[in-house]
């Protein structure tokens, strides 16, 4: 009997649960003056990319709290509605549809370029806007441009060219470069952009041409890099561009230590793994590794937005090393707050018009969103890591802020990115 009872209970509660969830969403909310302005955050909040999604959530939450404490926007509070994209395109589209279906048309976040490219074409029909806080694929502001997508973060082209400018200036003796890259669109586009920057800045700064040796292409998500590492050990190049990023970079450097790869090259650079490599490698952190950052808090000490964000983050999480994603999600919320204030409305078309050409202050100083292709022009940050004797095992040895002066391409929405110097790209 008890078995029977529990079964009935389960069926009953399931039915109630199903009905409640279905009907809960049938009711369409309507905004009245004084009700909160709802911003939708789309981010990987579960799965393998959750570690980064957590940073985006923290940054956006802090921005919303700060704005609300200061009295909100247009006298209304901001409310953050979160949706998990699991870093999967299908889940991302479902999240965007769900948000717009529930009347949340102003969205931000998105880590994976695949998710951003999947959501972009659906926005116009749903009268929604997406302000991308991380996804760096050049296509978003080129071939796959959508008038309803903005990017307040730096993109692959500007970031990798900034990295080339950094090494061309700081390491004039290192003229021969090679790379190990993942076989993905972003892997190819990052390397092509870096080469483009090298071919421009190295001759400009050192009055001679650099030598670019063909890159090694590894499988994305590979678990064994030994063949690739052996190949790199035979290379005559002095600079290594390590295009494999995130968890893959940790795997690669973990295996490379045994071969002495990190000592073989004079300069090692990484497009954007931020703290991930150092935090995972500890005492085995490759010495002198330059890593690209969306935002490095240490570079803007003394600036109020930066310091307030850093303090709020440390207070909220207890973590002393906020990744750049925190700053970029924070920035996207600020962009909305500025645009809504400027437009005097939360209407999608008016917010789009206000975002176009918007200049606003952020955790890494002033940014300007270009009217033509919706790409923000902003600083690009790099941090150099090295091993340390402390318990932590690694330390920050240097950092650089590169201003975007002639780093970004001319706007060309709807057209593929044309490399000026790298004719192979």
């Amino acid at each position, binding site marked *: 009997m008890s078995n029977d009872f529990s079964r009935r209970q389960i069926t009953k509660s399931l039915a109630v649960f199903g009905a409640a*969830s279905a009907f809960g969403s049938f009711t369409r909310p309507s905004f009245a003056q004084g009700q909160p302005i709802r911003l939708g955050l789309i981010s990987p909040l579960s799965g393998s990319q959750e570690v980064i999604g957590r940073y985006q959530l923290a940054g956006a939450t802090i921005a919303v709290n700060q704005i609300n404490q200061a009295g909100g926007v247009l006298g209304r509070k901001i409310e953050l509605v979160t949706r998990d994209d699991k870093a999967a395109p299908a889940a991302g589209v479902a999240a965007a*549809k769900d948000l717009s279906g*529930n009347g949340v048309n102003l969205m931000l976040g998105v880590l994976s370029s*695949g998710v951003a490219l999947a959501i972009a074409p659906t926005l116009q029909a749903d009268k929604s806007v997406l302000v991308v806080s991380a996804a760096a694929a050049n296509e978003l502001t080129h*071939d796959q441009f959508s008038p309803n997508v903005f990017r307040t973060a730096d993109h692959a082209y500007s970031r990798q060219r900034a990295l080339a400018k950094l090494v061309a200036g700081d390491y004039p003796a290192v003229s021969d470069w090679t790379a190990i890259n993942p076989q*993905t*669109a972003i892997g190819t586009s990052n390397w092509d952009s870096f080469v483009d920057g090298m071919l421009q800045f190295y001759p400009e700064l050192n009055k001679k041409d650099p030598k670019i040796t063909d890159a090694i292409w590894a499988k994305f998500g590979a678990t064994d890099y030994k063949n690739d590492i052996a190949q790199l050990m035979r290379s005559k190049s002095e600079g290594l561009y390590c295009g494999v990023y995130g968890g893959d970079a940790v795997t690669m450097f973990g295996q490379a230590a045994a071969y002495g790869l990190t000592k073989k090259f004079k300069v090692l650079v990484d497009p954007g793994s931020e703290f991930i490599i150092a935090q995972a490698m500890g005492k085995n952190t490759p010495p002198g590794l330059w890593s690209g950052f969306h935002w490095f808090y240490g570079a803007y000490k003394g600036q109020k937005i930066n310091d307030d964000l850093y303090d709020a983050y440390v207070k909220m999480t207890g973590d002393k090393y906020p990744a750049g994603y925190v700053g970029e999600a924070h920035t996207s919320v600020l962009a909305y707050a500025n645009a809504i204030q400027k437009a005097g409305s939360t209407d999608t078309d008016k917010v789009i018009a206000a975002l176009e050409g918007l200049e606003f202050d952020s955790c890494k100083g002033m940014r300007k969103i270009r009217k033509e292709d919706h790409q923000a022009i902003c600083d690009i940050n790099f941090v150099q890591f090295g091993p340390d004797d402390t318990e932590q095992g690694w330390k920050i040895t240097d950092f650089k802020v590169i201003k975007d002066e002639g780093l970004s391409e001319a706007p060309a929405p709807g057209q593929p990115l044309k490399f000026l110097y790298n004719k192979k790209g």
Partner: protein
Amino acid sequence: MTSSTNGSTINGSTWRRDALIAAVALAVLVSLPFVANKGIVFVAGTLALHVVFGLSWNLMFGQTGLVSFGHASFFAIGGYAFAWTAKMFPQLHPLLLFAGAGVLGALVALVVGMIALRRSVGVYFAILSLALSQIVYLLLSYTPSLGQEDGLTGIRRPLLSLGLTTIDLARGDNYYYFMIAMCTLLAIGLWWVVHGSMGRVFKSIQQDPERAAFLGINVQGYRLRSFAIASGTTAIAGALYGPWLQLLTPEIAHWTFSARPILYTLLGGVQSFWGPVVGALCFAVLEYGTRTLHGLSEIVVGCILLLIVLAFPGGLLGGLSRLGKRMAGKPAVAAKPELAR
């Protein structure tokens, strides 16, 4: 088959009951864009594709006794074939492309089946199908013209010219309705196969292949037919998925996606035609209901599924039919032998 009088009366009542269920389901799906928000409409459209995916898998498993662990490969073959040809040859009629994707899926199944089904059924066939899906997955993630890991982006919803009129499937909910119509046709096709004479031959093979062979049935040939029909239908569902999401990634060939129709069928019930439908619906409702429980969603869905499977070993429909019999005063052991399996 010869049991005409008995067969036709059963078919008559089943036909009326199933037509009624289908009509109600269709009415809900068609009215959804008017009453529910876009999020729910997107979930419902995706659900329709998953229903076809589940139904076609169960044609092999529940009807013919073939276990495939790699059914997603046909979803991916159909999806990529449609998206690639639509991009390269935009002048071709979309219906021709959808049909072509189905034919390609069926042909691949025929070729693979001729080799794989020759000697191996059961777990051997399951493993071979799993291997096939991983091959498809790797091929997709290595082929530059198919976008490698990043997949095909910017897949357009086509213009559908129907002689007198042309419908732009990119406008409003047009593609949703088109997809519902296509999925209904595919489901009717599968129902017809299951309940027709071919379905009865499949069933006899599922119950006892040796006896079926003794009766003069070409067991190998019919297994191949079941595999090809299921794969062709799945390939069309895959083709419909590309323009729906406007993007395809190799993930749809991954074994985790192959697990979907298996879950739907086990959840809903193997023995009933409607089992995978109920399973897919249940799954979609659970996923949608837990979407805001970030990180906990999978755990909650997993626990509920586990509870259902433990409480209803024959799936939800199997459990309901036993419950109904018990309520009617019949002892539970009087359930049909196949329900008890």
